[in-house]
């Protein structure tokens, strides 16, 4: 196990104790999802402290609770089947071919794009760490840690679509982070509406600067802006709807530091500061229902 700072150890311990606030819990959960050793440390604390529950008295819940659990289970099974993309979510090994295919495309990319391609290749390493989380998201959204699991307040639909909103469509995540650093943003994409939400976990932009989110795809000649990330905890936008699922799934998502209000010319002006990827997660657009 790698050596952790006292801050990390305290974060794990206080997560298990329960005294973190909502944002700190989200941060800890994001860390758990990308850092197995950190997750193990949290589990060790949960186990050590969990013995305290031996002293908690048992109280019977009402019988209808069981009925609700039973129906929720058959419900979630049915939903999982519906939400499943055509392809079985990639096992970690299955990532390899995708990376290789990416590399063969490099010749077609401009120098600028090549710089970004390096980012994309690096991001796929992070993606490998995330694959377990994402695969869980596909099959069992309920298993995702709270920080990553869609929360009602993050599912802001800014554009009303003609189809009825799907109550619990699958949600997919990418954790945007610096190499080896703490997660800074958690990007959640709603598979049905393609709205995305960025949750700010760590970083704050310097005064006079803005964080801007970009989509980088080898199917597109240059990075596409997904807009400036607001100062609030959550920024929600529908702009991914104009991209097809192939682009969304294989893109690298990167955050740059731009002048206040964002890049004036639609081109990133800094190297990507935080990056991450979604993998094979968003099913092709369903025909209008």
């Amino acid at each position, binding site marked *: 196990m790698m050596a952790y700072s006292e801050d990390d150890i305290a974060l794990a*311990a206080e997560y298990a104790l329960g005294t973190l606030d909502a944002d700190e819990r989200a941060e800890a959960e994001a860390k758990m999802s990308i850092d197995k050793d950190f997750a193990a440390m949290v589990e060790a604390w949960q186990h050590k402290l969990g013995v305290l529950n031996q002293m*908690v008295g048992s109280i019977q819940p009402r019988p209808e609770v069981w009925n609700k659990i039973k129906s929720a289970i058959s419900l979630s099974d049915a939903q999982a089947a519906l939400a499943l993309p055509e392809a079985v979510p990639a096992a970690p090994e299955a990532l390899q071919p995708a990376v290789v295919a990416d590399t063969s495309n490099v010749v077609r990319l401009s120098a600028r794009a090549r710089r970004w391609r390096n980012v994309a290749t690096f991001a796929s390493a992070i993606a490998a760490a995330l694959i377990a989380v994402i695969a869980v998201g596909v099959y069992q959204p309920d298993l995702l840690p709270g920080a990553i699991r869609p929360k009602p307040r993050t599912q802001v639909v800014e554009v009303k679509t003609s189809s009825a909103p799907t109550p619990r469509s699958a949600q997919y995540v990418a954790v945007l982070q610096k190499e080896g650093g703490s997660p800074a943003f958690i990007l959640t994409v709603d598979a049905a509406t393609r709205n995305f939400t960025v949750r700010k976990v760590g970083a704050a932009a310097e005064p006079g600067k803005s964080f801007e989110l970009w989509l980088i795809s080898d199917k597109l000649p240059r990075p596409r802006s997904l807009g400036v990330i607001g100062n609030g905890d959550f920024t929600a936008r529908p702009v991914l709807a104009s991209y097809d699922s192939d682009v969304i799934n294989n893109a690298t998502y990167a955050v740059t530091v731009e002048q206040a209000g964002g890049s004036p010319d639609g081109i990133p002006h800094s190297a990507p500061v935080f990056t991450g990827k979604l993998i094979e997660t968003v099913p092709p657009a369903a025909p209008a229902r």
Partner: protein
Amino acid sequence: MLTPAELVWLIAAVAKGDEAAFERLYAATRAKLFGVVLRILRRQDLAEEVIQETYVKIWNGAGKFNPGLSSPITWMASIARNRAIDVVRKRGELSIEEEPAAMEVAAESPDPLARREMSEELKRLLECVGRLEPDRQKLVLLAYYNGWSREQLAAKFETPVNTVKTWLRRSMMDIRECLGL
């Protein structure tokens, strides 16, 4: 309550989709888990929702349970407790004044277990908690059993939040050292 070994067996069966095993697991563990989350949520309706979500997670995630790392009941209670804490943190805190009576009662009364009924692990942990200063023992136990936030603890101890933060951190580090974690 079934023995831990029986619970491990049940969870393994649940991981394979055995509904009867799941029902037995529920019957054996629901009251303990409900007790844990009700202390934290203090509302029957919220506690029931958390219990529902917890067992759905257990059904879906039984394959992830690792008996080498955790006991079955601790694993299940952690899922329930984490969910309960998420709910209270996100609802915004009930101020301590809102329910003084209930808070106070809950604060002082985890079920007293006869010492011989305690597991060795519990004795060991309580020994370590017991080495903390009295106020800090109470701080840690209130945080764990009642799911109180730092703000609630600060109000209870009439201390600035930052002091509580420091105490909590120091206390956890002391416990860590004492347990040899």
